[in-house]
């Protein structure tokens, strides 16, 4: 009798959990609790995805960093075994190939075509322009009606205006490309919707590349167009790269602005530290801490093993998929003391919210400056900023590849 009711070791280890998992009700800022369980007891273990495949899930920081820095680990989405997030994303990736999903040497060759624009000096030089954009949008907020949806009125326009300026994309087209971007990063979008959205975006950006070829300007798309002229990129590759930069360049930062603001409103002591500090170091630290704590790119870094790899006590076979849950890695108590506490003063520089390895975020210097400007300005200029709804009513992006809020009604 006993042997029937007590689960055997085998039964426990062969029960493969579905991924992604759900966050706990009432804990919208914390990763799903199962991830901490796994990190403590089985940091490299199997999961089951939407298509029935059973890749490895890695939940601890050290193993994630080791794998993301390992040349035997591939980001190539065309390899069998690559753990796609959804049918929609799989279909979209077959449509447009960009360096985020390629391996070196091609990845490095293409990434280096655009790295100059994201160097620390070049991005630092944009700070005054970013400050002007933020100030102007806050002027408009203060002059407008309240309550207001902070996502539409502020969080989305800031990075959109900045990336449009940098790329040379006309901001007046923002409704068009924001609508298509939304479809691209929604995990519930069907393959048809994803493919339609990416085709329309690429057609639009191909038109812009054509214009830049005819009339080069002082912007990044003109540099990309130059690579077409030099025979280094096809028109298709150039338009796909432009699409990657446009989508990655505003959806992520927009979510950090809105979700970061909500997290601070819900942690009033931390918000007070940010609002009252005149110290750029504290602001920079708060940005790193919110990146770590919120880890908005929450569906795991996705990879596939090229060779057999021993990691975390298991052997990952060549051709098997890997999902590296950096949201769990950023809450690893081996690396961050009291990892579930938001502490804007801790400056957790080693977080992996921008990933790790050769694919670590290209736009991170820009994202940092945008967030530093926003966090150091918004709460100081609107010190009474507060939610205009119950937190239970806020629609969170549980179904998004990038986490955040669809709407954030605020008042002051």
């Amino acid at each position, binding site marked *: 009798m006993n042997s029937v009711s007590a689960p055997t070791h085998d039964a426990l280890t062969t029960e493969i959990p579905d991924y992604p998992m759900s966050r706990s009700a009432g804990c919208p800022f914390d990763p799903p609790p199962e991830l901490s369980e796994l990190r403590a007891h089985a940091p490299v273990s199997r999961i089951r995805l939407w298509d029935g495949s059973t890749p490895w899930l890695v939940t601890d920081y050290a193993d994630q960093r080791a794998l993301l820095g390992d040349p035997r680990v591939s980001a190539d989405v065309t390899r069998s075994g690559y753990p796609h997030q959804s049918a929609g994303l799989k279909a979209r990736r077959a449509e447009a190939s960009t360096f985020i999903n390629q391996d070196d040497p091609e990845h490095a060759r293409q990434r280096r075509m655009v790295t100059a624009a994201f*160097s620390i000096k070049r991005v630092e030089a944009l700070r005054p322009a970013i400050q002007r954009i933020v100030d102007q949008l806050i002027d408009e907020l203060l002059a407008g009606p309240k309550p207001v949806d902070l996502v539409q009125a502020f969080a989305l326009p800031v990075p959109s205006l900045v990336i449009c300026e940098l790329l040379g994309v006309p901001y007046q087209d923002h409704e068009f490309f924001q609508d298509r971007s939304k479809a691209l990063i929604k995990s519930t979008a069907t393959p048809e919707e994803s493919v339609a959205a990416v085709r329309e975006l690429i057609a639009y950006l191909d038109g812009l590349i054509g214009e830049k070829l005819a009339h080069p300007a002082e912007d990044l798309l003109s540099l990309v167009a130059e690579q077409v002229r030099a025979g280094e990129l096809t028109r298709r590759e150039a338009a796909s790269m432009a699409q990657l930069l446009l989508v990655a360049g505003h959806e992520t930062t927009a979510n950090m602005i809105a979700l970061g603001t909500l997290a601070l409103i819900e942690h009033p002591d931390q918000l007070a530290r940010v609002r009252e500090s005149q110290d750029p170091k504290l602001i920079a630290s708060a940005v790193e801490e919110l990146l770590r704590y919120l880890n908005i790119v929450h569906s795991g870094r996705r990879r596939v093993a090229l060779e057999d790899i021993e990691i975390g006590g298991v052997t990952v076979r060549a051709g098997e998929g890997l999902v590296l849950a950096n949201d769990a890695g950023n809450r690893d108590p081996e690396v961050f003391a009291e990892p579930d506490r938001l502490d804007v003063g801790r400056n957790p520089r080693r977080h992996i919210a*921008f990933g790790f390895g050769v694919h670590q975020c290209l736009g991170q210097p820009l994202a940092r400056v945008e967030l530093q400007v926003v966090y150091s300005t918004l709460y100081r200029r609107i010190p009474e900023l507060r939610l205009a709804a119950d937190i239970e009513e806020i629609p969170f992006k549980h179904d998004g590849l990038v986490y955040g809020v669809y709407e954030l009604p605020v008042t002051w």
Partner: protein
Amino acid sequence: MKVIIDQDKCVASGQCVLAAPEVFDQREEDGIVVLLAENPPQDAAEAIREAAALCPALAIALEE
């Protein structure tokens, strides 16, 4: 302390420049790392170790 950088590996994330701006810089044309001081002063040691630990491409090696 001697600092050795690998420009072929570098992915221009900018992490080293943020950690130790007196020791690391980026090339104007492509953001790839350049070394400002091969044998930097001892008081920069901690910042340099941090830069090496942060480098996502593992392109910074140290000889202490």
